């Protein structure tokens, strides 16, 4: 019985060097997603077939605000940062035709962009400048652009084509 124990000891010595050689290596995998916003539908058009009041009544020839107010179009986009902002810049409807006393060739309005239940607005009145940025956060989906508060200086609208623009800018936190 004693002899058998002596034989077992060398077997234990043989196993020990194998355990001592094991090792773990680590590969650290890091990634990053940049803050970003993107319009996937970035261009739409609102067409108003007649801006002036028709008929022969007292307001004939002047702006019919109802033809502008409430008109809307939908852009589509997303932002992947909770600190993203949305800014609107409204450019007035203008006509290149010459004016004369009693006439105007500019229609102002307010544009409101709604995304992620947040509104950003800008009025075209005064100098061309962006409105106050609104924190739109992380979202994907529609950006509804709606016109309101259409107005002109006192006067009749000159005939012809009028063109304006609403620019909606989505900006992530940097």
């Amino acid at each position, binding site marked *: 019985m004693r002899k058998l124990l002596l034989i077992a000891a060398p077997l234990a010595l043989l196993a020990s060097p194998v355990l001592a050689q094991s090792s773990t290596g680590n590969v650290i995998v890091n990634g990053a997603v940049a803050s970003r916003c993107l319009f996937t539908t970035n261009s739409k058009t609102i067409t108003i077939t007649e801006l002036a009041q028709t008929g022969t009544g007292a307001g004939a*020839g002047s702006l019919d605000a109802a033809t502008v107010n409430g008109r809307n179009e939908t*852009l589509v*986009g997303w932002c992947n940062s909770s600190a993203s902002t949305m800014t609107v810049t409204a450019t007035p409807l203008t006509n290149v035709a010459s004016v004369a*006393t009693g006439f105007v060739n500019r229609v102002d*309005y307010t544009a409101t962009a709604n995304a992620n239940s947040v509104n950003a607005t800008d009025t075209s009145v005064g100098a061309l400048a962006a409105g106050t940025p609104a924190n739109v956060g992380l979202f994907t989906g529609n950006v509804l652009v709606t016109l309101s508060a259409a107005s002109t200086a006192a006067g*009749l609208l000159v005939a012809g084509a*009028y063109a304006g623009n*609403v*620019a909606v800018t989505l900006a992530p936190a940097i």
Partner: protein
Amino acid sequence: MKKLLGLSALVLVVFPAAAMAQANPSNTGNVAVNGRVAPVCILGGPNPALVDLGVMIAITGTRAGRIAVLPAQSVSLPASFCNFAGSQVTVTANALLAANAGAPPAGFARAVNYTATAAGWAAGNAATTTAATANGSSASSTGSGPSHPLPKLADIGVTLSSFSVPGDNLLVTGNYSGTVTVTLGPAAVAN
């Protein structure tokens, strides 16, 4: 040496590109807003709408039975406008004719001519003078003013003047009526 220069150039190109992608990640969508205003002219309602000349002949004196000196009559078309460049006023006048359409006897007439002038629009007036004959034929005449080069909002004044009778004949009795039609619209385009 050539290889070293090539490597340096590659490094310089790659880093700025990566930096730009990070620095300007905002994105803009646009909604174009287009509108239109149709060209239109509107005349203000005439004031007065009816011109009553009363009795047109001299009752006594050497011209008894012949047309009296009738004062000029004025009608205003307030706040008339055209919202485009290149408009003009046209006046069409119809001589005053006796309600009785029968041919007048020799020495008599059943027509009163006059001049209608529309002023206040372009640089020149629109004017016409009727030239009806004694029996009332050829009662209508038309005249146009020059084109106005800008949109315009103004009161148009219409004056009726220079009343006369063909041949200065005696006027047959009865009621007389005529019309003046003022048209505001695009200037005629020369062929």
